[in-house]
């Protein structure tokens, strides 16, 4: 347990991550009011992914987790990608 105390990151690092998250929120909101020629969706999605990654890596401590825990998280993402990509393979190519 004492190990944990020593390895806890300082409060400042958490606040920095939070500030980054709020910044990204402002960015995604702001960019939505600018016409980006169909790229708005991509920008919004990319920013959402970045925010999710920040939460997962720092708040959920994936940065310090063992390989097994990371594998569980990665498996879920991979399986969602399977559902979406093979599902869209039909929807996008229907005649």
């Amino acid at each position: 347990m004492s190990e944990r105390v020593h390895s806890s990151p300082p409060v400042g690092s958490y606040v920095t991550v939070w500030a980054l998250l709020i910044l990204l929120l402002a960015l995604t909101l702001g960019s939505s009011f600018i016409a980006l020629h169909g790229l708005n969706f991509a920008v919004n999605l990319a920013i959402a992914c970045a925010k999710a990654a920040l939460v997962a890596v720092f708040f959920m401590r994936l940065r310090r987790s063992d390989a097994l825990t990371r594998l569980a998280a990665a498996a879920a993402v991979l399986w969602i990608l399977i559902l979406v990509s093979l599902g869209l393979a039909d929807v996008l190519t229907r005649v």
Partner: protein
Amino acid sequence: MSVPHRSSVGEFGMWVFLASEMLFFSVLFFGYLVTRLHHPLGFASASRHTDVVIGSVNTAVLLTSSLMMALAGRSAAAGARRSAAGLLAATAGFGLIFLALKGLEYAHDAQHQLVPWRDFSLAFEPDAGGTRLFFWLYFIMTGAHALHLLIGITLVLTLMVVVARARHAIRHAETVEIIGLYWHLVDVVWIFLYPLLYLVSRT
């Protein structure tokens, strides 16, 4: 710090559960995506009627709650009972603010007849089928999220009482960590819901 922390049985179990939860929500996201591809017009026009101010403020509220949760985990690990309990209270508090704002938003939606039930105000817009489906998905997705948040708030409040009464807060550090994981995932779900429901077509 570079040594990876071997997750406890409980932490790993929660991660496996969260993997399952992610697949649970993925159905809604996939359904949203497919329906939006069929109705780009309806989704664009309908999403302009969601309340972007409340949506954005709520996003910030939830992100802040996650910060509180992460800090609570840190305090509990350091054995700081009072600050851990206080931070858990703050976490639940932000969660409740989110729900209150969400409730207000639902009331507005109902007022503007955005519930695609009988008197749907967007029923005569072009691609009315799309607008109707958008708002059904809006209510189902935010509803499923709110339900999860409610469970999270209950867990965090219970945990707060336990930690506040504990002689050694450090004994509950692992539980704080585990419930924190759940809390953060509910936050991540909202991070994706936000642009899909509020920012489709604002230009």
